């Protein structure tokens, strides 16, 4: 995810509960959301994230591409993913 980063003061629990310490907001991610979040945090590229989800789940690549784009838009909207 070039040029974008997850701020350090965002914590995620094992169950996918996100806490934004800077604003006090919290969100719940499902299993796939949690995996994507963790992949973004480990600096995986968009292509690597798509491959990982396609490999782990039986989903069409085009569906993953579209859903990932939506998910990333949401993360940016809530300032979970910000420009470096």
């Amino acid at each position, binding site marked *: 995810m070039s040029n974008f980063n997850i701020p350090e*003061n965002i914590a995620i629990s094992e169950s996918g509960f996100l*806490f934004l*310490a*800077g*604003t*006090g*907001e919290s969100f719940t991610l499902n299993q796939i959301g949690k995996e994507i979040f963790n992949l973004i945090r480990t600096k995986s590229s968009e292509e690597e994230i798509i491959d990982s989800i396609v490999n782990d789940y039986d989903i069409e690549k085009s569906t993953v591409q579209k859903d990932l784009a939506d998910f990333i838009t949401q993360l940016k909207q809530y300032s979970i993913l910000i420009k470096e």
Partner: protein
Amino acid sequence: MKIAVTGLNATDNPAPGVHVIRSIKDASDFKGSIIGLVYDSLDPGIYMKDLVAKSYMIPYPSGGLEPLLERIEHIHRKEKLDLIIPTLDSELYGFVKLQPKLNKMGIKSFLPTLENLNIRAKDNLFKFCDDNQIKVPKNFIVTSLHDLYSLSSKLKFPVVVKGIFYDAYIVNNFEEALHSFNKLTSKWGYPIIIQEYVKGDEFNVVGLGDGTGRTVGAVPMRKLYITDKGKGWAGITIDDKVIIELSQKIIEKTKWKSGLELEYIKSAETGEYFLLEINPRFPAWVYLAPSAEQNLPYALVKLAFGESVETFSSFKVGTIFVRSSWDLITDIKTFEQIAAHGEISV
């Protein structure tokens, strides 16, 4: 050590007293008892088990300072008070004026200065912020109906119409502004503040200044649940250096003495904090501070006794308060003690 605390009306618009007491009593080295000073025989704090050793009715400072002083003298003769902590905005001017007399009686206090109280008054806040490069919503001070009509062409709706001490309404047109204006003047008098509406989330900070410009501690909170009266009913401590530094700056510039609550709005558009109000006492949610490892009310007690207090350097982020409503049961005999005799031990 005997500490008297006011503001035990823990209602849907709660006073801070009960929460200040709870904080002090939580301090592991606190050895003493608390006396409640109440304005109403139904103040819930009176009936909370193990909160205060005794409660006494006191007259409102607005009814004149002499009767209040006489009542405190009477209570002092019986209780030998060491410290008084007033917790309500409306009584602070009175207690500041009584301070020299209380000192003479041997009763300590740790109150804001008159300068502190005057800076935070809504009509002076704008100038203070402007002088110190602190963002604040644009303000118009209105002292007559004629002023309001003269402003009508300049107003960009929505705006906030605020009373000098309490209450604020967001209005969307001039008719609504006029309605709120009349409501507020009949309740609180002039001036009325017409304030720019900044869209965003509310963040508050509880802090303690030692009067030299030093911030002893500051804990920021985001309201998670707001009642229809605008009161935070749940909140969470947050990790944001910007709001802490801004609060330290305000305490430094005002040389704030005593507890305070800073109310901010974070602009949804720019992400900047705008200072809305300085409340010259701890807020009702102050118990969140000791829960997040900054016992600011107890630090105030130590300062009042001239002890040195170290600056709190951190707090626990993600600490949440959820206010509750709980019926306390008492009986007519108990109620009689406070209603008819003005004092009660529960």
